[in-house]
């Protein structure tokens, strides 16, 4: 198994941390993993993205050429990373914010109203967890248990949000079912 995932969105949407969570879960399962973030120069309003690779065997390059999965949290990210998907790859996108439709027909689409779901569980900030939930439900690169048990480590001190985040993951998973 090898999954190469690009997560992208506004700075502040938590895509980098979502990627760390996936990598952490993978490590817990004794899988190999790499996580590589990339920021714009801007603190806010710019875009941020990260590349996460989860694999059963040694990962030489942490750089993703063609991605297995793209998770786009806003419109600029969709525009930028849709072309980077490999044929038949999975595109998860945040339909709460993204108005336009993805263009390619050779990929699998999964629209997740992440902001709305997140607000429904108590915090707009957990939109990133919603898409993580959708992703692991769809691809099963890591188990929900590994992800959930990694949350306290990846988001230390944010125990208050723990339940919200777990609920967000569950709701995200539910989108797929």
């Amino acid at each position, binding site marked *: 198994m090898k999954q190469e995932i690009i997560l992208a969105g506004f700075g502040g949407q938590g895509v980098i941390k979502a990627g760390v969570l996936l990598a952490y879960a993978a490590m817990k399962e004794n899988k190999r993993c790499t996580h590589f973030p990339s920021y714009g120069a801007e*603190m806010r309003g710019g875009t941020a993205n990260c590349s996460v690779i989860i694999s059963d065997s040694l990962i030489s390059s942490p750089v993703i050429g063609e991605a297995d999965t793209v998770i786009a949290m806003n419109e600029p990210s969709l525009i930028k990373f849709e072309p980077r998907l490999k044929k038949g790859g999975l595109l998860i996108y945040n339909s709460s914010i993204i108005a336009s439709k993805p263009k390619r027909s050779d990929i699998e689409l999964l629209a997740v109203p992440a902001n709305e779901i997140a607000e429904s569980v108590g915090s707009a900030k957990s939109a990133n967890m919603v898409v993580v939930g959708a992703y692991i439900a769809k691809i099963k690169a890591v188990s929900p248990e590994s992800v959930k048990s990694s949350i306290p480590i990846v988001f230390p001190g944010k125990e208050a949000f723990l339940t919200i985040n777990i609920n967000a993951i569950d709701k995200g998973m539910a989108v797929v079912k």
Partner: protein
Amino acid sequence: MKREYKRPEGLSKTIMRYCPGCGHSIVHRIIGETIDELGIREKTIAIAPVGCSVFLYEYFNCDSVQVAHGRAPAVATGIKRVNPELIVFSYQGDGDLAAIGTAELIHSATRGENFTVIFINNAIYGMTGGQQAPTTMPGQKTTTNPFGRDPKLAGYPIRVCEMLATLDGPVYLERTAVNKAVNVLKTKKAIKKAFQLQVEKKGYSLIEVLAPCPTGWGISPLKACEYVDKVMIPYYPLGVYKDLTQVK
């Protein structure tokens, strides 16, 4: 009488990439208006520092030079000496101006170079992710003061205007803030005066602007403005620190 409050010509149409509530944007607008009002756009050179305002060359509608971290006053000196008819302003953050650029700050001031320094004191390194600045408040948490700035280990904040006021070079030094409307208006007055002095070849001036950095401080924009009032202004009193002129 018609009053119009709208984007000045001194600024380009480019949308500014600052965070919500960032003080930089407000000061940019003020400078843009000043450029318009003094009619100096075509001969103005903006010096972009390294810091969140590094992209200001995209925002100002005039020629500009983007320079190394802290060296804006040296570059401004080079420009102004070669071409004294130009209007040159260096725009610098607290890390740029009061840490790595300390020597350039003090020596351009004591030389009394005829340019204008706009100094954005936001008590933090915004661009690099919120590390301690030389002006970070005692007790303030930053990414390199995880337990809050301890003056015993990390030193005391520097008061730039007070320090420069001991020099014979500067003609005009004032500290203002942009945390509320009344202070914004005073900042406008100060910045315009500083540029005016340069036009009149009167010499060096520096305006220190206390500015909110909600992102770096990890609080909301409104809370950040309050922080300026409650914490910064008591340590950095607003006012004129030097004025050798009669310009109104």
